[in-house]
């Protein structure tokens, strides 16, 4: 079936089987391999993308379900340089192997965009849906908390 949606600001159209998940469509049909697939059943959070601004698990959506919607992957969150959130991850050593990182970045971006004043408890609650087997989470939480200042300004200007 044909599915048309907006991906990282550009209109795309793909031909997929109905059973294809959004995650597989992004990776295999559209070449956006920044979206990582860990568990494929909604447990690890690595495949998190934004649909109409909400952080969702792309393995728990069908590609068909984003017809007409706006999808943003980790590729859509930065230009040629690192985004402030990505730079904060680097500064705080919030990744080691990096497999889980796209899911953390998309999730934290969605959170800080709507709640730039999120406190540590809220950040930990939101990030509890993403698994990381390297860092022990502490530097990830620090990176997200440190990045809040960039989003606070962005929200005031919008």
């Amino acid at each position, binding site marked *: 079936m044909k599915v048309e949606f907006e991906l990282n600001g550009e209109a795309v159209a793909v031909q997929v089987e*109905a*059973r294809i998940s959004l995650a597989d469509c992004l990776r295999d049909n559209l070449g956006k391999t920044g979206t990582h697939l860990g568990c*494929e*059943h*909604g447990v690890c959070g690595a495949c998190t993308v934004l649909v109409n601004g*909400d952080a969702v698990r792309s393995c*728990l959506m069908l590609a*068909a379900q984003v017809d007409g919607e706006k999808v943003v992957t980790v590729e859509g969150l930065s230009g040629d340089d690192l985004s402030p959130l990505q730079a904060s991850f680097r500064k705080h050593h919030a990744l080691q192997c990096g497999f889980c990182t796209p899911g953390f970045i998309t999730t934290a971006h969605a959170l800080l965009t709507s709640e730039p004043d999120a406190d540590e408890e809220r950040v930990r609650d*939101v990030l509890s849906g993403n698994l990381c087997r390297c860092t022990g989470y502490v530097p990830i939480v620090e990176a997200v908390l440190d990045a809040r200042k960039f989003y606070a300004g962005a929200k005031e200007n919008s």
Partner: protein
Amino acid sequence: MKPSAFEYKSPATLGEAVSLLAAGNGNAKLIAGGQSLMPMLAFRLAAPELLVDLKRIRDLDAITITEDGIALGAKVRWCDIAGDQRLATAHPLLAEAIRHVAHYQIRNRGTVGGSMAHADPSAEMPGIALTCDARLEIIGAGGRRVEEAADFFQGLLQTSLAPDEIITSVHLPAWPAARRWAFREFARRKGDFAMAGVALFYDLDERRCAANVHIGAIGVADRPVRLASAEAALNGKPVNENSIAAAVAAARAEIDPPSDIHAPAAYRRSLLGTLLERGLNQSIG
């Protein structure tokens, strides 16, 4: 971890959706948020021939609050409930319970109707619906009907829904401002399915005794259950150390929880009593 092949339709009206389900002859399934169904498909625990998506159907996503109570449209998401400030007073038990549903990303997609239809015995929404005497509005090929939550849940992932039926809304009776309540659940990691949980409320009569006691439990049977003996132990009594101890003993005696890889039955029985004790102590205020 790939679903088997199926057809996909996203009709624009409830009537079309019902017709598609009816024509599917038991081999069609509804999808909305998909947060329970997609894992079932990935594991091939479900292998429908047709998925009917509610995505384009309007008017199922409202939270309506009147003096009769609260109506939750079937497509209301957990994040919609969390973001509705009115519910903090209009139904604090619902608002608190929904804070425990899964994780951030799932709360952005999972729906009230989907959770009710999936009928996981550990899930919060079915537990709240049962505890609060909710009514479900259902549409099918035979027309519309209303079902009490107590009759709706029929076993592990089993409900009274016919293959051609769709939940359109869930109604919770009005919540008096002075009502006492608590919600407690325990999971090893935040956001996981609860090993056990308890939802409770009661009103205080003119003698400051508990009346209209409702106690529901999740994770301790093949469906959400009301704890009739524990309710009887509190009804008409002042809520104090003695009546709480009696209710906890009654609750532990009346449940017959399952053993599984997460916890043996004895642990769940003990846990439920502890959660009930803490909840009742919290409800005294």
